[in-house]
């Protein structure tokens, strides 16, 4: 798919490439190994205005349009999926405040979220509620002027670094979205470590024991927390994850081309062996197709097309599956070196695997997108 980029979109991609090459890539292996994102990386993200990149200039954001934002996420995904995850979570959650927050919520939170002075995380998953978010058991008990929240949240990406959480609970049986501040009495934030991929994403378990939150911290009506608030955030998240997966595929392609061009076996460089050549072709095809779906998704989002959310899910499903397959092949191409921490390909596979789970698993996408297919969306083209 061809796509003429505007000057601003091309600039966003190039700025992101320069930034991640200088400030992120040199630390990507360390972030993976130490399972944290160093303060100097967080500071560099703030100083270069990446935390608010997708938010309006009115609030201090970078005002990137969806395509420019996606192109930037591609570059971050190329360098370091953990850091890309921070931008994904922060932007998708801040977008909810931008779109559905009250005037008071916007004025209070958006300037600090755009500058990166404060980080926001998304707290939905629970020990007993993953893909079926309707099963959340965290309870928000309504009281005069406030809610009293009790429950546990897990797999909260960058929850350890966050100052604010968009948290989903059940209020008299109905889902509700609430902003919870890190310093709230009764909230404890614990690390979740030794995960398989995106190991530097500072995962947290949140325990809430009677945390009191004012009614003014609610977003949307009671009952709309999942169907609209959570789903809008997850839609933004899927878009960024899809582009991040394209970045992983690109990283695999770069690494495999380098290795196949330099490594000699059987009297010739790997690139001369027919099965390696086939793999390089398949990797290039995966990159081209995944990127084309992401470009289509971005264009539909910019047009406000009702198909955008489903096409974004389609792009995320395809790009994450392709990234997993390509990264697995990249390890094989590297032979034993593929299993060594001296080469990045094992990190690519672990990070790619996570893109196939977050913001909706592969299986959830397979089910949901079948419903979309039954609506014959291609007739609308």
């Amino acid at each position, binding site marked *: 798919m061809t796509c003429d980029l505007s000057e601003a979109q091309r600039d966003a991609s190039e700025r992101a490439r320069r930034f991640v090459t200088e400030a992120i890539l040199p630390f990507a292996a360390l972030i993976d190994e130490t399972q944290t994102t160093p303060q100097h990386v967080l500071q560099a993200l703030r100083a270069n205005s990446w935390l608010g990149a997708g938010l309006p200039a009115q609030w201090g954001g970078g005002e990137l349009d969806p395509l420019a934002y996606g192109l930037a996420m591609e570059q971050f995904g190329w360098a370091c999926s953990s850091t890309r995850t921070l931008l994904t979570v922060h932007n998708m959650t801040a977008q909810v405040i931008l779109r559905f927050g009250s005037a008071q919520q916007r004025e209070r939170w958006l300037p600090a979220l755009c500058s990166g002075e404060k980080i926001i995380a998304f707290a939905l998953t629970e020990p007993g509620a993953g893909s079926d978010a309707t099963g959340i058991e965290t309870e928000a008990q309504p009281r005069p002027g406030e809610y009293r929240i009790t429950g546990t949240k897990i797999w909260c990406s960058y929850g350890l670094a966050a100052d604010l959480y968009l948290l989903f609970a059940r209020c008299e049986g109905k889902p509700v979205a609430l902003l919870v501040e890190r310093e709230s009495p009764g909230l404890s934030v614990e690390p979740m470590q030794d995960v398989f991929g995106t190991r530097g994403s500072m995962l947290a378990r949140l325990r809430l024991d009677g945390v009191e939150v004012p009614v003014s911290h609610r977003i949307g009506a009671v009952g709309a927390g999942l*169907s*609209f608030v959570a789903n809008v955030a997850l839609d933004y998240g899927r878009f960024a994850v899809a582009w991040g997966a394209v970045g992983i595929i690109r990283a695999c392609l770069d690494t495999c081309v380098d290795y196949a061009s330099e490594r000699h076996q059987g009297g010739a460089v790997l690139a001369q062996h027919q099965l390696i050549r086939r793999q390089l072709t398949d990797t290039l095809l995966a990159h081209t197709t995944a990127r084309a779906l992401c470009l289509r998704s971005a264009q539909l989002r910019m047009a406000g097309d009702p198909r955008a959310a489903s096409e974004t899910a389609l792009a995320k499903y395809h790009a994450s599956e392709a990234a997993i397959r390509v990264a697995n092949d990249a390890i094989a191409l590297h032979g034993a070196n593929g299993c060594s921490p001296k080469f990045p390909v094992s990190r690519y596979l672990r990070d790619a695997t996570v893109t196939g789970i977050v913001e909706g698993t592969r299986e959830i996408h397979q089910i949901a997108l079948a419903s979309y297919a039954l609506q014959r969306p291609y007739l609308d083209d």
Partner: protein
Amino acid sequence: MDARSQIRAYIRSKIAQPLEDCDDLFDLGLVDSLFGLRLVSFVEQKFGITVDGDDLDIANFCSIDALTAFVTAKGAADGRV
């Protein structure tokens, strides 16, 4: 076409079963997470309105009747419908 006709045509084109204007799309299990987002985008694009936090109520989106009432009231408030 009036708002009701446009909403009815859109939803009926996406849902392969007979549907009355008063049928609750959520109670019938016809709205998954992606279709819910499409409904929001559809009314915003088609009627030039912006769905904000105060509008995020299942009661505004649960049926053709509800959507018609919502876009009519919202559009009137915005001076559009």
